[in-house]
């Protein structure tokens, strides 16, 4: 019953998707708008396929993704340390609160000029922006997660002989995994946006090899609008893959399997 309903909803969503694409195609072909500015979807798809098979799009995507992965791993480590410090000590918590109040409202991209001055144009600056965009929202989530660990778990952990880092790894982190994952989702989304934005600004600043953001910038520069849209399509597809596939599988393998949600 529930399965059939799910299948029906999927069908209706697919219907809307196809209708929207068809509309796009028709409007583009009707010639109301300048076709180079508003290329038909079939052409975008073709360019997308070409760039995918000749490796260009894949290379750009991989470049951006590896940046994000590096940034996320670094952010995760820093977030765990900050959050653990905050729930262990009043002092550290006040520090984290102050940092969070100052830095959270600052959009990462606004820091880019400073980052370029400090770290030059290149990976380090982008990593800096990713860290800034990801750490603060994740700290808020993980702090809540750590606070929600039942005291009974902590007492049991201590009974078994766990202290400090081992208590963190053995009891506190697994117990706050639902918060950890939702923090990671937010972190991923913000990192993705930060990278694309940063790469586009770099595109304006210099000609270094870059990722998808840089690619979008360049295609517009050369007036290859179908190429721009193809890159946007790549961004949408990766977003769907990560959110619907990666996170869903991750949750199914962990917190859903353990009845923690």
């Amino acid at each position: 019953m529930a399965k059939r309903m799910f299948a029906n909803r999927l069908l209706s969503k697919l219907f809307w998707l196809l209708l929207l694409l068809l509309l796009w195609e028709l409007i583009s072909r009707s010639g109301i708008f300048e076709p180079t500015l508003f290329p038909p979807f079939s052409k975008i798809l073709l360019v997308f396929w070409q760039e995918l098979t000749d490796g260009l799009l894949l290379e750009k995507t991989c470049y951006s993704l590896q940046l994000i992965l590096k940034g996320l791993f670094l952010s995760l480590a820093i977030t765990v340390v900050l959050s653990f410090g905050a729930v262990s000590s009043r002092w550290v918590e006040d520090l984290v609160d102050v940092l969070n109040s100052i830095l959270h409202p600052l959009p990462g991209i606004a820091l880019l000029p400073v980052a370029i001055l400090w770290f030059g144009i290149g990976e380090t600056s982008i990593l800096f922006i990713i860290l800034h965009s990801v750490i603060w929202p994740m700290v808020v989530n993980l702090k809540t997660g750590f606070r929600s660990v039942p005291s009974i778990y902590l007492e049991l952990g201590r009974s078994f002989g766990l202290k400090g880092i081992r208590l963190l790894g053995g009891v506190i982190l697994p117990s706050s995994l639902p918060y950890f994952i939702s923090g990671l989702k937010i972190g991923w989304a913000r990192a993705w946006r930060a990278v694309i934005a940063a790469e586009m600004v770099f595109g304006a600043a210099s000609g270094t090899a870059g990722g998808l953001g840089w690619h979008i910038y360049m295609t517009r520069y050369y007036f290859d609008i179908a190429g721009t849209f193809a890159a946007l399509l790549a961004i949408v597809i990766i977003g769907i893959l990560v959110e619907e596939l990666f996170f869903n599988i991750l949750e199914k393998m962990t917190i859903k399997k353990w009845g923690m949600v």
Partner: protein
Amino acid sequence: MLELQEVVKVYLRENFRHEVLKGISFQVSQGEFFCILGPSGCGKTTLLRMIGGYEKVSGGRILLQGEEITGPGPDRIMVFQTFDQLFAWQTVRGNVEYPLKINGMARGERRERADFYIEMVGLKGYENYYPHQLSGGMKQRAALARALALQPQILLLDEPFASLDAQNREILQEELLRIWNSLKPTVIFVTHAVDEAIILADRILVMTEDGDIKMIVENKLQRPRRPGMPGFARMWDFLYEQVRSSRWQAEKRKN
């Protein structure tokens, strides 16, 4: 041997001192089954938590084999009243094995030991279930298996069967006695059910409602004990009266 000397516990609420336990002294010898019986709110859990080392004493001392207890440790394991004391991210076997792993036991040995105690509490076949797939009674069994597997000197049981239905409670009481008979750990069992205390304990400590010792009763009834057996009803009446009168004595002291 476990020895409590004039143990006092005070909680501070705003600017008001709430003396929950008022100088508790008793001894429990190795291998004894000791019950603490008392009305709700008299400080039974607090007492057990201090023995477990989760809570500091405000006065007096708690000695285990002559050494003062300073914090929690694997020699005293508590089984709580709540169903949610198993780690949700570990299977039944994982939960039982985990404390052994922490204490450095080799993989094969701890697996063997875990399976032994899982079978002992009657959970054979459920080794790979996660806690959320178990019933309340099964969760309590698993928690008991986890505590037993550590082979602690003292087993601290805080109304572990209180939220079970009568039938499951009886079965688990029997099983606990069987396990106690074969392993002979020291058991300190908190309950507010008079019949449960009679069925289980060698000695029963009756608490007053305001956190003092009313009396310690030796339970000489022959095991196994059944509610219908000779002497059971008299013991029950006696203890019930003690618990009840301890309640109105506390009332009187308050006024």
